[in-house]
């Protein structure tokens, strides 16, 4: 049996450098309420709940269980959690709805990077034998990839700066974004990447609601149907990969049906400017495709939520009638190690 499944609502917080005054569940609650309000659903109406977060970001053990307070998880509900970006929680929820076990799903993700040093925190996801003992931070690894692209003639520093400037200019229309408008490109953080090539560090949360078939049409005027979704991963060792390419993105896109027909809009999860260069090539996106009209991860990068936000932004563009066929991408790990691609469509107008 094949079921049609759609994103029917999306909400996100304002993304900010710090949110000291709020616990994680306190940051998350307004977003949960907003996304439910959009559909008229209550938490008790939701068939399946799935979340994505990482305790390492804020250093709070079992913070995801505390976050469950926000969805009314007592008495127990059908729920799951991934220690991954919320885009992968959405993938799990999508499979759950495909089985017919549930008709609606709430997917949320949050990240509070402000309490810790996120560049160091992210080293803990690396190979613990050969790599993590060297503490190579996330900017350093992205810079190795950027230099490889420059050496290959695929980009140069002015082109990367242009990606940054376009993203933050587009974010001017996104009141939720953390970096908007004109942002100085700054000094080298790890050469060849300047501060402007790197995402802002901040706190934020996002949530979407999925629904199947007729239920989706009841809950949303123009559902964003998930026509295909797939995720693929590459070898963990950076030295065996061609850092100038992303075969996992290309394969996920192929499996998701992205190449069957052109998309009009793409939300790419490229926290570093150089990664947009890799993704555009892997996804064969031409200049006619609007890339990251929201500003993307260069404008707001709440870790663990930024990928889900790409899916949410793409869906919201369809809800608003600004897109008919959109591509959404999420990434995880160093140098685009793991990639998820979804193709979303609205009903013909």
């Amino acid at each position: 049996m094949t079921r049609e499944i759609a994103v029917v609502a999306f909400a996100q917080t304002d993304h900010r450098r710090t949110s000291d005054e709020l616990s994680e569940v306190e940051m998350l609650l307004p977003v949960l309420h907003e996304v439910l309000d959009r559909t008229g659903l209550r938490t008790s109406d939701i068939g399946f709940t799935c979340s994505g977060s990482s305790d390492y970001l804020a250093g709070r053990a079992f913070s995801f269980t505390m976050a469950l307070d926000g969805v009314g998880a007592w008495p127990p509900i059908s729920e799951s959690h991934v220690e991954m970006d919320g885009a992968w929680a959405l993938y799990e929820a999508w499979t759950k709805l495909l089985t017919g076990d549930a008709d609606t799903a709430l997917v949320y993700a949050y990240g509070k990077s402000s309490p810790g040093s996120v560049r160091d925190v992210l080293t803990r996801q690396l190979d613990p034998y050969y790599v993590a003992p060297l503490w190579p931070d996330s900017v350093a690894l992205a810079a190795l990839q950027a230099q490889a692209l420059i050496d290959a003639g695929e980009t140069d520093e002015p082109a990367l700066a242009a990606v940054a400037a376009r993203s933050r200019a587009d974010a001017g229309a996104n009141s939720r974004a953390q970096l908007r408008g004109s942002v100085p490109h700054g000094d080298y953080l790890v050469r060849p990447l300047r501060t402007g090539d790197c995402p802002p560090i901040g706190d934020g949360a996002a949530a979407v609601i999925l629904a199947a078939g007729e239920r989706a049409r009841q809950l949303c005027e123009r559902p964003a149907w998930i026509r295909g979704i797939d995720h693929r991963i590459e070898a963990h060792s950076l030295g065996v990969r061609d850092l100038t390419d992303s075969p996992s993105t290309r394969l996920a896109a192929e499996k998701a049906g992205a190449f069957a027909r052109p998309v009009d809009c793409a939300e790419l999860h490229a926290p570093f400017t150089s990664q947009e260069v890799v993704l555009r090539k892997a996804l064969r996106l031409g200049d006619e495709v609007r890339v990251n009209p929201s500003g993307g991860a260069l404008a707001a990068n709440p870790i663990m939520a930024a990928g889900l936000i790409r899916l949410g932004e793409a869906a919201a563009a369809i809800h608003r009638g600004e897109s008919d066929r959109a591509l959404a991408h999420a990434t995880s790990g160093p140098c685009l190690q793991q990639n998820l691609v979804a193709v979303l469509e609205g009903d013909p107008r």
Partner: protein
Amino acid sequence: MPAVLKAPLVVEFPFTRSLGPVQSAFLTGLRERVVLGVRTGDGRTLVPPVEYDPVTAEELRDLGGLVEVAPTGTVTTWAWNPEPRRGQPLGTPFAWVLVRLDGADTALLHALDAPGPETVHTGMRVRVRWAEERTGAITDLACFEPYDGDPAAPTGHTGAFEDPVTGIVAPARLDYVYSPGRAQSGYINALSGRRTVGERCPSCRKVYVPPRGACPTCGVATSEQVEVGPRGTVTTYCIVNIKAKNLDIEVPYVYAHIALDGAGLALHGRIGGIPYDQVRMGLRVEPVWTEGGRYPDHYRPTGEPDAEYDTYKELL
């Protein structure tokens, strides 16, 4: 609004990890100043070596086997790090590099000690600088350094060692500044005035102590502060017979769930001022504060008659 509470929080752990046969050989090799790779089915040499082929997933140990490569190689990409961070290989500005060692088909991540970014380029030749003290870890390779000689010749090592390392201890430390959020800050601030406050759910009216900002039954935010206690009722308890490290309390003692008057759920605390074997469900207690204490040291009997079971059965 009172100032946001903050406190330093250090998460520190020495991870002890066992090694597989290939990792063991590679790290033992570094200890002995030998760099080993592993050969794949299609004849490539992977450095650093892994147990399984990243493309075919074949087990490599018995397929192509270990093979020595040279301690010299070529930079395949680099990134200049002007501000080294804690734990990184060098304390002075350096280049991160991926280096393809002579004889290898893949690249190894490490640091390159070079005077400045203008001296580094992709394609430059480098060689291993060994650490003076080596234990069988990736850090036995102190870093790379620029090198303009011929490729060094491997010694012909087989990859078999007399005293192989079988594990590593990898210390990890992350520093945070913890802030407990709105609801818990309110709770902690009230405690400093020797009061206990919870928050009431606007939907089901239950009072949560300590408050976490949300009602887990209704899934809505709580905000109305409610002072509870100071007296309460023991709803259930246990007798602790094992002395905890760094805790100066005579065993056996009683640890109990205590429903403070007005609270919708019980919190826990130690019961004192009464022999351990006389504590019972329904016992009425009150907090005992010590000078400078930020929370009640323990609870003691009030002397009131015991509470009826029906008054606290929903709070068990």
